């Protein structure tokens, strides 16, 4: 009986030893594997529109394992064709841009870009400039949202934002794609010594909070610049929020008059007591839409290993990048900014 028990114990000990051995030998290992050099490709990126000169960026791909920066191609031959006829030879102007100084494209016409560079396969891409879609109406209102304070409710505050309803009339019988963004004035202030009351900020509770303090500064200069407020929207038509603006199509509003609702916080307008805001509705080509949409999704998931990789759309044959067209309508408003959001000062 005792012998049997020992045999069982020995068997168990042996199995534990084996398990530990397996855990040791079966561990993961990392190998470095080679990745074949892919073909170097010409990259064409650019849009054309009816009220600007043509400017196209031309560069090249870089092997994914190459640490060197991606570079522009400075010696490329870039030609623009309108309906199959050569209309401009674009010349290099720096930072990868090739420009046609004296040619303005037209709405409804089709354009082909051809790029050649020694050592690369020549590429072509095709696009057209869609008809302009007008902004029929734009209504704004100021709303307020309560922000949660930090641990101390003293710092709780409300934040005001501009809500707008932009009405457009989607042309019937065709696929339309839209990019909406806003442009506004903004300023920053240089100070010299004096006493002013300034809006200071403190980051706590996961957000920036603002409050007034006395300080000794004097305005030296006010620098004005153009700023693109970040529009947020939960409108049903929105398909992507990109760095270029809000992207949507007419899939749900085909041929209808539609009022798009969006908003942005006043703290993005921090100027004086009012600001001029341009709302710009671009009617964009399908290629530009697909590029922007897929690129945003690509950025959003680049580091997420659980997500399905996103291949950015390209309409450049034998190369990559995109060539798109757009036409634009603007609607300008002057909005009064709540005092709280004036520039980082107000005079006593």
């Amino acid at each position, binding site marked *: 009986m005792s012998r049997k028990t020992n045999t069982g114990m020995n068997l168990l000990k042996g199995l534990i030893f084996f398990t530990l051995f397996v855990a040791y030998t079966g561990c993961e290992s990392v190998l470095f594997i080679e990745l074949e050099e892919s073909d170097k490709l010409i990259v064409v990126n650019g849009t054309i529109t009816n009220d600007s000169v043509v400017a196209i960026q031309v560069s090249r791909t870089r092997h994914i394992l190459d640490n060197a920066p991606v570079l522009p191609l400075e010696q490329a031959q870039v030609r623009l064709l309108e309906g199959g006829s050569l209309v401009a030879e674009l010349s290099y102007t720096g930072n990868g841009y090739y420009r046609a100084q004296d040619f303005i494209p037209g709405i409804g016409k089709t354009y082909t870009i051809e790029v050649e560079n020694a050592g690369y396969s020549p590429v072509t891409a095709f696009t057209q400039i869609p008809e302009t879609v007008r902004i029929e109406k734009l209504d704004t209102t100021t709303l307020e949202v309560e922000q949660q304070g930090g641990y101390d409710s003293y710092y709780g505050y409300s934040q005001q934002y501009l809500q707008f309803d932009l009405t457009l009339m989607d042309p019937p019988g065709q696929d339309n794609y839209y990019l909406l963004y806003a442009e506004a004035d903004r300023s920053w202030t240089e100070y010299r010594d004096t006493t002013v009351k300034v809006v200071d900020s403190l980051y706590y509770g996961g957000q920036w909070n603002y409050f007034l303090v006395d300080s000794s500064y004097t305005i030296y200069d006010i620098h004005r610049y153009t700023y693109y407020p970040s529009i947020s929207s939960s409108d049903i038509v929105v398909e992507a929020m990109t760095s270029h603006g809000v992207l949507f199509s007419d899939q749900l509003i085909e041929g209808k008059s539609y009022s798009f609702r969006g908003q942005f916080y006043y703290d993005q307008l921090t100027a004086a007591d009012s600001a001029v805001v341009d709302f710009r509705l671009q009617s964009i080509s399908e290629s530009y839409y697909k590029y922007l949409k897929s690129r945003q999704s690509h950025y959003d998931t680049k580091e997420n290993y659980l997500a399905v990789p996103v*291949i950015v759309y390209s309409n450049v044959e034998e190369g990559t990048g995109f060539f798109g067209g757009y036409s634009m309508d603007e609607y300008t408003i002057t909005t009064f900014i709540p005092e709280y959001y004036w520039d980082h000062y107000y005079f006593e």
Partner: protein
Amino acid sequence: MKKVTFLSYRFYYLHDTEDSSMKSKPFILLLLFTLISSGVWGQHYTLSGYVQDGSSGEKLIAATVYDYHSGKGTSANEYGFYSLTLPAGEVYLQVSYVGYAPYRDTFKLGANLNMNLTLVPSLTLDEVVVTTHRPQDVVEDVQMSSIQIPIKEIKSIPMFMGEADVIKTIQLMPGVQSGTEGTSGIYVRGGGPDQNLFLLDGVPIYNANHLFGFFSVFNPDAISNITLTKGGFPAHYGGRLSSVVDIRLKEGNMKEIHGAGSIGLIASKLTLEGPIIKDKTSFIISGRRTYFDVLARPIIKQINKSNGIEGMSGYYFYDLNAKINHKFSEKDRIYLSAYHGRDRLYIDNEEQWIDNDTSYQTTMESGLYWGNLTSALRWNHVYGSKLFSNVSLVYSNYKFDTFDETKTLVNGKHDLGYSYHYVSGIEDWGAMADYDYRPLPAHTVRFGGKYLYHTFTPGIETLESTDDTLSAEFNADPVYAHEYYVYAEDNFQLGSRIRANIGLHYSGFFVNNEFYHSLQPRFSGRLLLTPRFSFKAAFSRMDQYIHLLTNATIGLPTDIWVPATEKTPPQSSYQTAAGVAYNLNDNWYFTLEGFYKTMNHLIDYSEGSSFFEYGVNWEDKIERDGKGLSYGLEVLARRDMGRLRGWVGYTLSKVEVQFANLNNGDPYPYTYDRRHDVSIVLMFKLNDHFDVSATWVYGTGKARTLAVSRYAPDHYDFGNPWDDYNRIYLSPYDTRYDQEVEYFKGKNAYREPAYHRLDVGMNWHKQRDWGTTTWSLGLYNAYNRQNPFYLFFGYDNYGNRALKQMSIFMLIPSISYAVEF
């Protein structure tokens, strides 16, 4: 009794060949002749009953019953029932089943006769013969693209961690690809993991994986028979596009108590079977559990303690099979079977601290568990001598739950807490009836139907706080669906050379006021070119009303079963196959099959989506209406008899899919595309005590979507005009990487390095007074091949970007000890 000299089956062929004069007659005449011949010419009687193992009473599926006098024969169905109508008079009966001594009898047939036929295991062949199929059966069988997997082979082949595994043995067959390293998913003829129907005693199993797919849920000790069907689906199968794995549990020994058990590195198993009432009622119960959590408990506890944490974490799985079989009469039997399996991963922590005289205690419990519960109540009844029925009530439930719960006590009083649960699953209730009617020896007619009531819970998320201030539920509504099918098929002989199985399968699916239905023709045909060489062809349409959302090639329990809906129609496929089978010398046989399969309405995740996105409905993150095309060639050379057994399988195949919104709308290689796939399995019996085995597998690398270049987006600031001679290298932290766009040649355009691996094993058997003991030693990945588990981008020690490969499971030895009594 008249003495009969039984001839070898060479005579049997000769006999068939003599009848071959009919081959020149028009097809219609042959059909009419076959249909009426038996009924018109003289008096006929029917011999019927069950074919069973004499020592255990276990039914012998597909055993051959043959009358040399009339040249008529049949085979037992999957319940062991046979029915053979013969002319009145002399009968020279032989009943054979590989691995058993043939049963022979001679008698005069003058009335319908109920006769249970009992075979005893062959003493001379003993362990050497393990298959249910003789090479000649493979040549003559009308069914192509179908493989029987003998249980003894499963136990002989070296396996990962020494754990015999049904699905991993199936992976070694031609036309079947494996998924990620070590996992037990199967991908058949280019189909996805959801396109395989696993039937355990006729009940669908929705997740056949333990331990994230490294083991399958099927315990070989409880199984009597496994059939894999890859194409030429007979009409009684339906519901999946690519394969049916039909697994039948043992029924339990009717004569005496027997058992088997084993202790391995991962798990231990125990099976007991025997009579409750001798020759009337039997049972079998089989259980398996892992014990790594138990062994590791003291170590984990110590580690936690050193970190000031009270708590425990671990993982285990278990499964349990049970079956009761009762014979009411010679015509009525009832079976009740159940399976329950559960995986559980748990991490429990408790922390206590005191701050400013206030005591805090936080308890965190998180983990995930998943498992199946299935049950079947089956009634077999024989009407007269020619009609057999199987009526079943079935239940199947698969549930996955991941949870995270936190509670905090301040000075012993409840303060804060919340719980998060993500639950998905599918539950089926159903009834089925199958009838097996054998009016004439040349005809086996089957008809029947099945109804399933599905309840889908595709990813319910709940978030609750313990003070009831927060309570949110997403995707909370289950989806209910009704699925049914009816079918009829006739497996019939036309002359001596042609045999065919023609059938129709009609199925329907109701979900959310949507009704889908389809009529699916099925055909399989066999032409004997010579007695040892046959040509086969098959055609089948299959429809599948449920989809599996998965973006991993390992069997993650997070995979979600979802129904066809108004927006997402059912998948369908058409498969045509043709091939030849050749019996070389009654030991070796060869098959060569080509297949061409089209698939429609496939689904896949949209680009950028992930299986785990908070609050997103599954229909909003998939692409639908995908098309697939799969074609290929499969070669199998197999030997199941003698001291050397095994097979060589090779598959040359290609599978592409096409979705409007993926890969610019162009076709691309499916995740399961593998150009070349080779399996070599050899088992050699040295003597009565020792046998050795080895398997070698090779597969083309998996198709992956991998970036090969990067490039600038629009309005990119290139900065200084750098050139290749003045390179300023980007550091890993350069933010310009974030702006750059990765360039992919296409979806799944990159091929991982090829996969290959050698496993070797050895079994040492010893006969004891009370039974048999077996020590098994194995080496998984014997030459330490570092196969890719997954690829990722990183940096080397010098800060250079590098493509890295993660490999697991190198050179893993295993040992196990098994007893059988």
